[in-house]
């Protein structure tokens, strides 16, 4: 099934994957989206985590509503210029306690809709935030990418430094290679915490695991992003993420990652 050219014209797709939950896929996706947006690009964010959709909160769009047009669904826009659009199942739930208790086939149908029925317009970058694992959602995304006109796609893998995370991400690398997704590189998140009081740095989740994994599996290491409680707090309240990001020690690292991925 072809994606209607008038509906969406996406130059490049990045799938943000892990294998491990809670490493910061959604946070990193949000930071990458904002960093690209600040560079003047048109960006779309597609959240295919149907059970745990975090993206609406991170963009402070929790009350967003997806509108329908004749040709498809319209993204919820962060900005008036409509340069940063977001799609998530979060926008379709009535309340934040509503659980999406679906088995694979129903999830696959929703993902197909998300991949083929959205009117993105012209986009420079589409970032797809995924749930952890290597299962139905990931296979559904890949099937739809291959049958649509999203020609230029690759994966960005997120890990935290410790073995528990690296073990799962190693499997995700295998998944990518098996299903034919090129890997742009690996980001190591939660890489060190600098105490705001005494500036001493502690590696809460051990260290260097992401870099070592990249070296051992012949992938590019895109960079390490530290823990910034201000940014975490900001994700919580959904306030002023972009302004807080720009002041954060994470911003330098994220901008370096963006420079590498847009090459």
């Amino acid at each position, binding site marked *: 099934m072809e994606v209607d050219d008038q509906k969406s014209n996406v130059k490049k797709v990045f799938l943000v994957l892990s*294998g*491990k*939950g*809670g490493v910061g896929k*959604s946070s990193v996706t949000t930071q990458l989206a904002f960093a690209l947006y600040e560079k003047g690009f048109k960006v779309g964010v597609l959240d295919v985590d149907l*059970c*745990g959709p*975090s993206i609406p*909160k991170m963009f402070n769009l929790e009350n967003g509503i997806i509108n329908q047009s004749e040709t498809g669904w319209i993204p919820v826009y962060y900005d008036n210029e409509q340069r940063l659009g977001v799609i998530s199942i979060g926008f379709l739930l009535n309340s*934040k*306690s*509503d*659980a*999406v*208790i*679906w*088995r*694979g*086939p*129903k*999830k*696959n*149908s929703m993902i*197909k*809709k998300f991949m083929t029925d959205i009117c993105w317009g012209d986009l420079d970058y589409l970032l797809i935030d995924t*749930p*952890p*694992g*290597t*299962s*139905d959602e*990931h296979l559904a995304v890949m099937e739809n990418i291959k049958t649509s006109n999203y020609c230029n796609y690759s994966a960005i893998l997120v890990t*935290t430094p*410790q*073995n*528990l*995370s690296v*073990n*799962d991400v190693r*499997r*995700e*690398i*295998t*998944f990518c290679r*098996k299903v034919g997704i090129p890997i742009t590189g690996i980001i190591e998140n939660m890489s060190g*915490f600098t*105490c705001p*009081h*005494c500036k*001493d740095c*502690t*590696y809460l*989740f*051990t260290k260097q695991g992401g870099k070592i994994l990249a070296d051992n599996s012949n992938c590019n290491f895109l960079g390490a992003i530290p823990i910034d*409680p201000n940014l*975490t*707090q900001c*994700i*919580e*309240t959904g306030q002023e993420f972009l302004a807080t990001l720009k002041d954060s020690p994470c911003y330098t690292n994220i901008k370096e990652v963006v420079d590498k991925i847009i090459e």
Partner: protein
Amino acid sequence: MSDDSNNTMSQEVPEHCPGTQSSQAGKSSACQGCPNQNICASGQANQPDPDIEVIKDHLKNIKYKILVLSGKGGVGKSTVCGQISYALAAQYESQNKQIGALDIDICGPSLPQVFGVQGEQVHQSGSGWSPIFVDENLSLMSIGFLLPSLEDAVIWRGPKKNGMIKQFLRDVDWEELEYLLVDTPPGTSDEHLSIVQYLKPAGLTGAIIVTTPQEVSLLDVRKEITFCKKVGVPIIGVVENMSGFACPKCKIESKIFPPSTGGAEKMCEEMNVTFLGKVPIDPLIGQCCDEGKSFVKEFPNSPASLAYKNIITKIEKYTELNGE
């Protein structure tokens, strides 16, 4: 509640699918054009699974069965499941009682790493699969043991994952256990529906739900609580993990994952579930998991160990009161 599927069914369903268990399955207007319509209309999808009785009988010597759930990934389900298992095993060692752990995270099996038994082989005998022994009275089963290498990815759709979970429940020779703790992947999907479907008839004691303090986690955990209530799984309580970090140098506490909406304690009040306690971040916990060691054994006086001990006391009170 939700739709079910088996290996012969197509991978996509119509938007308003009534569910394969519904009386309207195959007959409603939404079913027109669905590739599974004939199967549903014939009633084939709605037969009770005979393995449910087999599993009920097979697990009858396990006193307490507890699910460790979240909704959110990375909050520490495997870490908490692992450390509670270690602590229970230490406690019951003198009484010669056994503790078992079952890892049903098919895509990301973490327990072999947490228990330091990666690379072990599972043996089959006439009485079934033998779980791997971590300690004298602590055993584990995980798909991790069935994969030839650490790089192998398990790229399975729902039905195949469900089949594996059923096999774990039916074929693992646990013998007699005081506690079986089941570590789950994040979410509210196939694995969760399957484990409840097969464990409930065999007697499911309850669920421990793990979260971190921040709203981004609680958003998903609320959904998990809703899931438990919908499918009839009693909730033993909620553990708030990674609850604050005391800098080792200056000792001042930072809330790295801030409880901006009141944390797990407030959520528990709002949703009428028990709050089991808070476990702080201790970098040594991550290190112990990387090395496959028991944190509560290596560092018994750490605030996090004391927190685990309090949580276990509450779990035991629950199991004594609410029974098998």
